């Protein structure tokens, strides 16, 4: 049914696209006369507001009666490249036009509008703060990107340029979130413009770790909340990236993971270090605590987290 539903939406969208097919090609603006490669995709570019619309009504300023108004006003290009008059009059002299590149380009163009700071994001103090090494134009391709948010490459490949071990762990280890598929990307959990600390995690709108954005049933609250989750978080027991361990646990042996906290050595000065019952770990049925303690994230019904 879901495929049918999605297919129906796609068909509707295709249908929406059809009516424009009969339109005459728009007259190109003066910048577009030469920069066809940048011009063509700009109509559907997020920066291309107002570009590619039907011609505006003729006004007395438009010159010859009936002449169509250009679809891309030069002002759109000039908002980043500066005044292009000299460049045009100079027959396209490249030295007479500003080409944003690197740190200076990002500072002078992108951050003119996008210098945003909020509870999560900082362009000046973020882990990816605008610098010579990493700046807006390192990751974003302004004219011709086909990816969302004008990324220069699909997100996984882009992040892999610098974070190769993290991406390799997703790609090669057996237990991993399916990055690059089903809408799951690095930025599902990480805020690329975020501030350092806690690995720039993209918290939920109510301020929780991003894990519960999808795994909602683990959010609780539970009457008997597992302390490791109430005081720590999911990463106390789980690896978020690719893992060699089942259920992406930080240990391959479940009993071992549990006993590392639940061991009464040294007078029980730490939380949860009570005697772990009398289970005989040499028997197979006791080697996996969560076989019986199934509600390990928390329970409303059983203090021993068994249901």
């Amino acid at each position, binding site marked *: 049914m879901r495929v049918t539903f999605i297919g129906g939406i796609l068909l509707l969208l295709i249908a929406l696209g059809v009516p424009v097919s009969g339109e005459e090609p728009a007259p190109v603006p003066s910048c577009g006369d030469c920069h066809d490669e940048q011009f063509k995709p700009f109509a*559907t570019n997020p920066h291309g507001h107002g570009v590619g619309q039907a011609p505006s009504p003729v006004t007395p300023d438009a010159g010859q009666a009936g002449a169509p108004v250009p679809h891309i006003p030069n002002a759109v290009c000039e908002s980043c490249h500066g005044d292009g008059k000299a460049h045009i009059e100079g027959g396209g002299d490249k030295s007479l036009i500003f080409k944003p590149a690197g740190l200076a380009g990002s500072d002078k163009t992108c951050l003119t509008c996008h210098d945003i700071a909020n509870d999560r994001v900082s362009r000046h103090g973020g882990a990816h703060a605008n610098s010579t090494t990493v700046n807006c134009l390192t990751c974003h391709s302004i004219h011709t990107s086909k990816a969302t948010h004008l990324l220069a490459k699909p997100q996984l490949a882009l992040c892999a340029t610098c974070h190769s071990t993290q991406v390799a762990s997703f790609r090669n280890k057996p237990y991993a979130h399916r990055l690059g598929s089903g809408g799951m990307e690095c930025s599902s959990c990480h805020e690329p413009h975020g501030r350092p600390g806690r690995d720039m995690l993209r918290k939920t709108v109510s301020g929780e770790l991003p894990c519960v954005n999808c795994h909602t049933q683990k959010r609780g609250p539970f*009457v008997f909340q597992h302390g490791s989750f109430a005081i720590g978080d999911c990463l106390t027991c789980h690896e978020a990236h690719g893992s060699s361990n089942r259920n992406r646990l930080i240990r391959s042996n479940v009993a071992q993971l549990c006993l590392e906290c639940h061991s009464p050595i*040294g007078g029980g000065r730490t939380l949860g270090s009570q005697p772990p019952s009398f289970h005989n770990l040499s028997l197979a*049925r006791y080697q*996996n605590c969560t076989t019986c303690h199934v509600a390990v994230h928390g329970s409303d019904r059983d203090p021993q987290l068994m249901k």
Partner: protein
Amino acid sequence: MTIKRLFALLLFTAAATAQAQTAVPFDLEAGYRWLDLKGSSGMYRTQINEHSGFLIRNFSLTTTSVGDRFRVTASDFGASPTGALRVEADRRGLYRFTLGYRSADQYSIFPSQHFYNRTRRMLDADLEIFPEERIAPFIGYSFNRFAGPGETTYHFGQDEFLLRQNQKDVEQEIRGGATFKFNRVYGSFTQGWRRLNGTGDFSLLAGANAGNNDDPILGHQISATDITRHDKTRVRTPFTSFYITGDVFQRVRLIGNYVRFAAESKGNESEATAGSFASFAISRFFNGATELETSKAKNTTWRGGARAEVNLTDGIDFLAGYQREHRDLDGEALINTLYLQSITFGGVDQRDFTTVLNATSSIDRDEDVVSAGISARKLGPISFRAEIRQSKLDVNVAPDLEEIVVPGSQGGSFERRVNTFDTNAQYSNNGVTVGVAWRSDHGDAPIFRTDFDDRDRYRLRAQWNAPKWVRLGALAERTTMSNDDSSIDFKGHIAQYSGDIEVTPWPLLSLRASASRFEADSTILIRRPETFATNTSVHTENGNSREAGATLNLKRLTLDADVTSFSNAGSQPFKLDRYRTRATIPIKGRYGLALEYSKDKYDENSAFDFDATRWGVFVRITQ
């Protein structure tokens, strides 16, 4: 409508659109995938779960016929465990709309005796009105449904029984608010309401009557003839979030934020069992039980903070902030259990026996984080950042909460302070980039036994892409942590190293290769429960990964091929080889063909090994 009809209709519509000489950028790729699986189906589905069937591999359409910009992308619907659809639409000055739909089939055969085969469906829609006005209202809606069958173990009457489980959790959220911008002050306010309804139905699995334990308990054979359970949970969570940013002076920016949510859950459960059981808790044998339970829990959390970014000179900023988070969690449960036809272990006093457990739990948690740092972004080819942070955690836990295994007074008050120094520097010039980072944490009294005293993380990154045809990269990360307390003796290190090379000898051919190494090594003292002897818990990972790939872009053929191999010789040894090949061939005009071959071979020398091969044939229509 079947997937085949849908596929045919999509092709027809796409063809009609393409024939219309439209200027609408449009891509569709759909076809069929075959799976040939040898070995463990359960493990294959846990790790990969791609199956045979029709598949809409990719769809994208961008047009200006609706608003200023209308874009839709979809991928992997059909014979795939995941699918995604995204719609973006905006009209300058009027609205901005996004809709995302995701589906994920989730299958797991872990832990032992458990499995689930569930599907998650998620929808997020957001609409912002008058996005360029000083006050721009927005509304949003999210939906998340996780449902499907499974099996689980239920510990009851001194034995464990396998139960069939049917779970359904539906969470919905509506939110609204506004962004605002007045001269040098801007921010956002959001108010939302979230509700989760969850139900679970359980019944004894056919053939599971004898339970896991074959041995009698005090000479009494334990068995179940019937177990049924039904539980229902409702959670209501209003939340508020707010942030404000002010460029109060020419060089000073202040940011304040506040978020609060109060989640309240109510649950009830009914259970009926019949059979022959024992209970150490009431020291009796019994022939069945009924249980009724009601519960309430509340989690109130708020976080507030402020920070300043002071621009000392061009490219150099001083950063300072303070954040406080408070969380309190209270719960209570009333559990009424009626044991039927019970007798003492001595065989006397036959009667129905009732127990009532009225449990409460509570946690209070406060965390304060204060930080100060400097960010220098424009020191020629060098950039630099350094920050110091102190976080202080105060926790109060009521005893009931931690009685997970053995009752007793295990709550208490805990306080932990962690001081952090975090710095990094990068050099970038002439295509050469070198970055170093160091983060050092020092903590005092641990709350959990696995909390560190000292932790250091080092990172070195280097890259060279001066000639356009070659890029070389290397990354090394190493984290060490320890707690020298003689009753804990925790030592661990995690290290990841990788090197990669990408060569483009001529524009049509690109070659790539990489090697990565993953190391983990941790030891900590534990107590063996059956002997109470002190033992050392040892975990190691010793993983090596190799990847090689090539992309060939000819006029009549695009070929992409990758080979990867990962082997782990640590605590969980295994070998995993993957092969991916994809060829795209234009046929005529806008039509083309894509062929895919994938192979995954997993070997841990057990019944979980599998060897899965997939072939796919897809028709492509590109505008």
